């Protein structure tokens, strides 16, 4: 069973752009982070607190806070102190922004989305 699943995963990922695959495996490895990278792609100038971003995303603050912190750790987002608030914004790094653009564009394709979702589900079950 495990072997068959690994084989399927391998086939699903085989034709994926290696950079996007790595982005998916190391950075967007949960549905909350998926929501967050899309949110920041669509709102590249937003700087806000976890509470407010949770409200915009319609998710619970707890889940969002963890996702934001991990994305900041991975360099996708920037975490800063603004007075007594911790705020998050999209990283200004050009390579990250280009990669994010490519990821979002690729997600327009249903096949890519199916593969990506399969990967995230597998990742969350581990």
């Amino acid at each position, binding site marked *: 069973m495990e072997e068959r699943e690994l084989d399927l995963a391998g086939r699903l990922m085989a034709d994926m752009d290696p950079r996007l695959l790595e982005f998916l495996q190391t950075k967007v490895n949960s549905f909350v982070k998926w929501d967050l990278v899309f949110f920041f792609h669509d*709102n590249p*100038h937003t*700087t806000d607190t976890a509470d407010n971003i949770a409200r915009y995303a319609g998710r619970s603050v707890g889940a969002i806070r963890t996702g934001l912190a991990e994305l900041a750790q991975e360099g996708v987002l920037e975490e800063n102190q*603004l007075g007594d608030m911790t705020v998050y914004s999209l990283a200004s790094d050009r390579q990250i922004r280009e990669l994010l653009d490519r990821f979002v564009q690729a997600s327009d394709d249903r096949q890519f989305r199916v593969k990506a979702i399969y990967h995230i589900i597998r990742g969350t079950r581990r």
Partner: protein
Amino acid sequence: MERVKTGIPGLDEMLEGGLLPQTANLVEGAPGTGKTTLGMQFICHGIVACGEPGLILTFEEFPQQYYRDAASFGWDFRQMEREGKLRVVMSSPEVTKADLEQVGGRIERLVREIGAKRILVDSLSHFERISEEPARLRGIVYGFINSLKREGLTAVLTRESVALLGEAEGTDDAIAFLVDSYVLLRYVEIESAIHKALLVLKMRGSNHDKGIRQFEVTSRGIEVRAPFEGREGIMSGNPRRMLDSFVQAFVRR
């Protein structure tokens, strides 16, 4: 005197040529009256006709909503963003306030990056989330307005009015004292049909048209038309013919 044209037919004439540069201009109205459209038109006109890049600061609507709404009037905000002439920023009032208070904050950098001259803040009502205490709120908005002026921006600030028809009850007029001009948008019921009225209530440092004008949101944006003729009590939302009032006051005694 130099003017910042809104590009809204009829409104610039009412404002004696346009808004004054580096001023804060309040546009208040009930939902659907056209506050955001007026603000977007002001930003679009700056970019397209005056070579003045602009910023839209939104506290509730997503940028996509502005792209969509603008597209319905033929204004390509996405393209303007790609060309570095526009930035649509969604944030919260508390973060915006703190960001503008610090030197070299994100908004300050965006203004400098695109050379923004105009800003639409949609809407000022959201500052009430920071404080409902009138004196503190006034202080916060005062600081916010000054920071926009510091950046050399001419601002259109929208504010929501709860009442659909007539005067809004409990409106905190402290904010009205802080702004340089104050435009009211109102629904008016005339013979079982809803019309829209626009009034320039105040314009600091300039004369302005005191008339109450009809306006319409067309496929090209807002167009301010002729004043309401032969009626009074327009801003009550339920105007009367002046002749009826005359009859009521003098004839039916």
